[in-house]
């Protein structure tokens, strides 16, 4: 069983090869503007480091922050026509109502409010106004907008209106991308609609990116199915990822935490991921990232997605150091570290220079930092320790000491002794933990269905059994299945104690 894991970050593209439970090789190279060439170079470097070349690869898994970054930086986004079905209800809070102005300006490609939608029990709210939908679709065709997001009231219970609208849009606007809200979320119109519109605005970028990944894989001579990693640490087939890029929004941090668990064999620990500009602190519980309780905002937009609970602080390998060492970051030289840091022949004093001078890591030209003032080094070292210490303390739920796993390209910055930490663990391949996390990502299966007349316990049992079957069908090893999510929602006033049950099961990928 051999799998390749790739993490395409903002700064670096990492690639690893994993055979069963062992990391065979790991490489790191700069992310390229065009994505393909960076991934290709990583794969070539990886293959070059192997004795037997690209033979016998069972699967390739890619995790990327590309889509998140696109939204956060408001680039490569397509305008979206937002179709809301539900008038006369919810009229005063139209699509985009709580979006940051600058993002709405880029993404809002027209708002169309149509009569229709459903009640909580499946009755129509009012009759779906197909005629109004048709004239809206014609306006969309004229506007030239090529991506449409459709959300209807109570569509998670019945998708009838969204599907009827989709058919009309397909007729009037051939070739446009359509995202339907019931595929993306649960009860909560505004949040589900937000996810739909976000998905719709990156769907074009996702298609190009996924195809670039496929091309890079093929060009490097690897003949294996391509998967994309999702927020919850599982993978989806690349063609599905093209349609639903929003599912991979938080896969970066998830991968690095899952990778940390894999590399150390620890199930419960604090994970500190030090990149070039920031450090993310998260908590592993039973081998999975602790999830944030709060409503999760993506690029300032409220959604109901479950995301890892992370604390980001402005400390990274490229962080700028004040002349006397008292202040570090949040400004960073970022990916220019390989030319601007003192140890790489540049003129800027960075956190990496301090670490090299202090003997924490051997990188570049050590002589370049020999003359640094020892007082400065002490001050800067104390400051780095204080930043990490405070972040770790804020993420801990109790005072008991816990192990800490340091990962990421700047993992060497984490001091060996920290209060409240039983042990700081630095392992081989820590720098590419996120690619490792991608490589070990599991397969998942989900059931979301209404059950009647059998009671809560039996309904959950039935749904779990179905979800397990689906997970095995998706390629999981049957003995590795774990139920990761169970949610049940009673539907009031529907005869027979109707209950909507959602169950999600994950398992390890089986060898192909």
């Amino acid at each position, binding site marked *: 069983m051999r799998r390749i894991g790739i993490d395409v970050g903002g700064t670096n593209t990492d690639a690893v090869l994993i055979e069963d439970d062992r990391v065979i090789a790991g490489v790191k190279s700069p992310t390229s503007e065009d994505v393909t060439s960076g991934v290709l170079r990583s794969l070539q470097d990886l293959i070059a480091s192997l004795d037997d070349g690209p033979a016998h690869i069972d699967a390739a898994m890619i995790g990327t922050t590309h889509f998140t970054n696109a939204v956060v930086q408001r680039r490569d986004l397509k305008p979206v026509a937002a179709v809301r079905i539900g008038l006369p209800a*919810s009229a005063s809070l139209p699509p985009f109502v709580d979006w940051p102005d600058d993002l709405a300006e880029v993404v809002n490609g027209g708002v169309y409010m149509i009569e229709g*939608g459903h009640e*909580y029990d499946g*009755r129509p709210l009012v009759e779906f106004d197909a005629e109004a939908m048709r004239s809206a679709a014609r306006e969309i065709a004229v506007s030239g907008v090529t991506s449409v997001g459709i959300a209807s009231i109570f569509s998670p219970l019945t998708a009838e209106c969204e599907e009827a609208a989709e058919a009309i849009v397909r007729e009037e606007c051939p070739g446009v991308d359509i995202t339907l809200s019931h595929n993306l979320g649960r009860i909560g119109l505004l949040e589900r609609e937000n996810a739909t519109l976000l998905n719709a605005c990156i769907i074009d970028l996702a298609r190009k990116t996924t195809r670039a990944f496929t091309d890079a894989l093929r060009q490097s001579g690897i003949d294996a199915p391509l998967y994309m990693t999702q927020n919850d640490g599982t993978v989806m087939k690349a063609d599905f990822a093209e349609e639903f890029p929003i599912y991979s929004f938080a896969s970066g941090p998830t991968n690095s935490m899952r990778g940390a668990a894999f590399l150390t064999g620890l199930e419960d620990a604090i994970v500190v991921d030090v990149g070039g500009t920031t450090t993310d602190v998260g908590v592993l519980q039973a081998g999975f990232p602790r999830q944030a309780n*709060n409503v999760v905002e993506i690029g300032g937009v409220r959604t109901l997605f479950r995301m890892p609970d992370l604390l980001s602080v402005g400390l990274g390998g490229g962080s700028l150091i004040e002349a006397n060492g008292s202040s570090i970051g949040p400004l960073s030289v970022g990916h220019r570290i390989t030319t601007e840091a003192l140890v790489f022949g540049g003129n800027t004093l960075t956190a990496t220079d301090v670490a090299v001078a202090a003997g924490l890591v051997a990188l570049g030209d050590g002589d370049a930092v020999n003359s640094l003032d020892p007082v400065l080094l002490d001050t800067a070292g104390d400051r780095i320790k204080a930043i990490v210490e405070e972040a770790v303390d*804020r993420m801990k739920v109790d005072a008991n000491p816990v192990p800490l796993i340091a990962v990421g390209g700047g993992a060497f910055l984490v001091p060996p002794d920290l209060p409240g930490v039983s042990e700081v663990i630095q392992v081989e391949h820590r720098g590419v933990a996120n690619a490792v996390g991608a490589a070990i990502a599991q397969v998942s299966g989900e059931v979301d269905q209404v059950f009647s007349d059998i009671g809560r316990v039996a309904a959950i049992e039935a749904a779990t059994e179905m979800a397990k079957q689906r997970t095995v069908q998706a390629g999981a090893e049957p003995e590795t299945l774990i139920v990761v999510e169970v949610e*049940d929602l*009673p539907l009031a006033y529907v005869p027979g104690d109707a209950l909507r049950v959602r169950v999600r099961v994950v398992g390890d990928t089986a060898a192909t």
Partner: protein
Amino acid sequence: MVDAREIQPEELTPLSTGAWILGAGGGGSPYYSYLNVREQYKTGKRINLIDPKTLGDNDLVAVVSSMGAPLVGQERLRDHDFAAKPVRMMEEYLGRKFDAVMALEIGGANALQPLMVATVTGLPIVDADAMGRAFPEAQMTSFAIGDLQMFPLCLADIRDNETIVARAASWKWMERISRKICTEVGSTAATCKAPRSGKEVKDWGILYTTTRAIDLGRVVEDARVSHEDPIKAALDHEGGVLLFKGKITDIDRRATEGFLRGSATIDGLDEDTGSEFRLEFQNEFAIGLRDGVPAATVPELICVMDTLSGEAIGTETLRYGQRVSIIALPADPILTSERGLQNVGPRAFGYDMEFESLFGAGETR
């Protein structure tokens, strides 16, 4: 002379945060109501908040709420124009204009219902409500405890269905009839309850609760920003009691007769490690049991908050794995009076137990 002040735009989020905590698990998240008011403020609308003690005895006050299941409110979102509809119906029915508008319940989304109405009608809002928290039924108000008249009631549906309940034999009948109508129109409706005179509000309203919610929300938000413990900030400010800290391990919800009933189990963390807490809810958290022993009951407020952010968690947003702090806050003396307990004590919710205050007899804020 009415004493009034303008509600500032920056008070809207603290009001929402505070009201959500005072909902004691019910009332639904104020987020959508907040958005409505914020959007109205963006167009230049402003609202005046008046001191209830300066109301004239004969002033006419509209008591407003949105009725229904919070779950439905997450899809059929609140709308300021729709909120004002039953108030206009009532004015037409009475043949008299209102002088002010007030909240039925300060807990949850309904805290902002009068603000939504005010941005449409221009009426000032009264710094008071009739619960000091959230409760599910009409007879659970301070006005019902005061035995005031319970009719007429105006109820509006989004589809041009308008209903007036002209008379009802009792508060419980008013609850049964209006609940039936609400259910029929999709379990959400905008209502204008029996109008109140200025004197009735002064005698039987729970006063200064809008300000209470704003102040509570502000201390929690400030603590969050300065990385202090928001739970402690809320407890210190309100004189509350920390009941339990833990992680939610099971939730069982049943929707019956328009209510979300059920229970949640929380496993202890930190000092509560090894103990188990059980919350029973009927829209709001009704009782809390620590290792099987009652730890708090209605009408005192049992509030569940996210341990890290201090954000309130409602009965419909409880989720497996959440880290929560469960706190109790004092209830208004009207609710804990003998007559009050008949309407809102543990027995009113079907629990065969006595109410025992966590805050001592005659506790007032």
